[in-house]
């Protein structure tokens, strides 16, 4: 718990809160200032917009503790503000609100537009207000109200202040507090030991087998070539455990039974880490050298689920002794990860996973070809920034040895 002290609407306000408490919750829950509304809670809708150090700020993605000693003005604090008073009159006159949920944020953003923009067109105002969503009146009345207030003020000779009177550098709300490197008392940590992992595995178990008419939301294809004969590669793909060990972060819970297997895959993308526990069914057709892996899994941390269908085809490559592998990946992602998800980002991650997979596959096949026993060669075991760097280095090393021994 941290004691946070702010100046709210001109008066000191203090409360002992968890560091995760965002500014809107601090004001609503500890100061009873419920004029600040919370809509989307991830910085999209603008309902929670208020003034921090005199400039508009999203209070749902700004933590109270990060604003220690800052000056906060909520809609309640704008009662005697000239611009806000004119806006309130104009909003009523132009029917700029209906349910009123977005209004506190609208007033704060509109006040900023009136303060800073000299003679904006309707289009300029719409762009400047685009970070505040209204779901009932539409924006016509709101824009008209803002335009009216600006015209009236400029006619009275009140000039715009383009920088909104902010003179210091850095994020609004920062820079007032004394450093607190050791100020935070460590909270009791929740164990993430074996019991927790087991609990996660238990929770993940009752994933039903994919139904037949399921269709993936997103599908894309990738292809790669490995420098080994078709038979060898096809044979390798028959061993699910070996294939899984080539995929960074993937591991199986046990040996597959009748093409049914349980396992997990850990994926790390920047600061996001997900660990999907799930089941997969594997089929293989020797005649056409094609196969499918159909699976589903859950990540308990982000409460997200995915279901996917991977198809692969193994065929001779352009040169003798080479094999082309075509992979099609179809998936559906639901839950928090999907809410954040932008399909293209998933594709980039999948592309990186496949690149690492191919390197691992090559290393394993080369190891086998040379008839070496014992420990398998080192493989990329986790997909992260480190592995991306090492994959570049690894690629260069491989090229170096290839040129040295004239293998390719």
């Amino acid at each position, binding site marked *: 718990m941290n004691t946070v002290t702010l100046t709210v609407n001109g008066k000191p306000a203090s409360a002992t809160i968890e560091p995760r408490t965002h500014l809107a919750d601090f004001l609503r829950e500890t100061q009873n200032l419920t004029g600040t509304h919370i809509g989307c*809670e991830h910085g999209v809708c603008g309902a929670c917009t208020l003034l921090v150090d005199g400039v508009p700020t999203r209070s749902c993605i700004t933590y109270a503790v990060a604003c220690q000693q800052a000056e906060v003005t909520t809609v309640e604090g704008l009662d005697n503000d000239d611009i806000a008073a004119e806006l309130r009159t104009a909003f009523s006159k132009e029917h700029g609100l209906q349910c009123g949920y977005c209004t506190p944020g609208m007033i704060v953003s509109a006040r900023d537009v009136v303060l800073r923009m000299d003679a904006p067109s309707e289009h300029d105002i719409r762009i400047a207000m*685009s970070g505040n969503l209204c779901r009932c009146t539409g924006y016509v009345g709101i824009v008209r109200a803002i335009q009216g207030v600006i015209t009236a003020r400029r006619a009275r000779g009140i000039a715009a202040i383009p*920088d909104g009177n902010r003179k210091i550098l850095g*994020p609004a709300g920062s820079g007032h507090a004394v*450093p607190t490197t050791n100020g935070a008392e460590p909270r009791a940590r929740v164990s993430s030991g074996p019991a927790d992992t087991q609990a996660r595995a238990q929770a993940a178990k009752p994933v039903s087998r994919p139904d037949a008419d399921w269709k993936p939301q997103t599908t894309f294809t990738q292809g790669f070539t490995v420098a080994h004969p078709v038979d060898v590669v096809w044979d390798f793909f028959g061993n699910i455990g070996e294939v899984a060990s080539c995929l960074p972060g993937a591991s199986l819970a046990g040996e597959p039974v009748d093409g049914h297997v349980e396992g997990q895959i850990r994926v790390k993308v920047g600061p996001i880490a997900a660990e999907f526990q799930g089941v997969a069914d594997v089929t293989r057709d020797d005649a056409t050298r094609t196969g499918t892996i159909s699976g589903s899994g859950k990540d308990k941390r982000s409460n997200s689920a995915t279901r996917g269908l991977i198809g692969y085809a193994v065929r001779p490559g352009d040169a003798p002794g080479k094999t082309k592998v075509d992979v099609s990946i179809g998936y559906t992602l639901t839950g928090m990860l999907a809410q954040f998800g932008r399909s293209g980002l998933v594709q980039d991650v999948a592309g990186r996973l496949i690149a690492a997979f191919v390197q691992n596959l090559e290393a394993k096949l080369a190891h086998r070809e040379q008839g070496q026993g014992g420990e398998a060669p080192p493989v990329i075991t986790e997909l992260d920034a480190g592995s991306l760097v090492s994959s570049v280095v690894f690629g260069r090393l491989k090229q170096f040895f290839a040129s040295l021994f004239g293998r390719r």
Partner: protein
Amino acid sequence: MKPVNFDYARPADVGAALALLADDSLSVKLMAGGQSLGPMLNMRLVQPDLLVDITGIEELKRVEDRANEIVLGACITHADIEDLRVPDVTCGALPSVARGIAYRAVRNRGTMGGSLTHADPSADWLSILSTLGAKVTLRGRSGGRTIPVEDYMLGALEADLRPGEMLVSITVPKLSRSARWGYYKSCRKTGEFAHAIGAFLVDPDRGVSRAVIGATESRPIVIAEATHLVGDGKAERLDLAFDSHAAGAAIEAAGMADPIDRQTHVVALRRAIERAHTA
């Protein structure tokens, strides 16, 4: 939509921040303005043990005006650049791009260093700073290093940070008076993530002709020698020199396979050139 509980620290200087980062037993996350990290924390996509707020560090909010370049601390905000609290040395390029980032309330807290480290392919700073030939300076406990902005991004959401390292500043070269630049982004809605970004810089006095294709869902495509696309900047009309086919070919060579994607990005670059600003 509440984050997991985390500890909070507000170090006074970079050294103290690096000391906190060095603790391997915890998952430590640095936060600047928190305008990208905040949503990820609220959605519990990121669940750190310790959040290190670097906005109290004075060094990161400093600007150093040198002879041929300007050095911006990592915690300089988009609004600082938009409002010219930071001197403009880019013939208006950085302030103009800043004005188009998300929304004003976000720009008042979002930082340049945070945006680059978040490494969202659609981010504006990544594309325009790559175009201008800017560099980032990273510091770890064993020293610092400076690399081009485009090399700092390894892939979607993945910055080239070694364990225990953090970004401290961004160095932007000063453009000459003859420089011309253009920037265009294609968004479904104002302030939303861009689907395609095109940007270029021609600076004949410094012998620079660069083009950048951004919002690729991965690293930006940087064409460091782009005279065949945007000319050398000496001609009056830049758009007459633009060759859509050559641009398409360059983008395809860089690995963008989908023809519709490619077309969107070629058009973004063409519009950037058509709307080129003169110094």
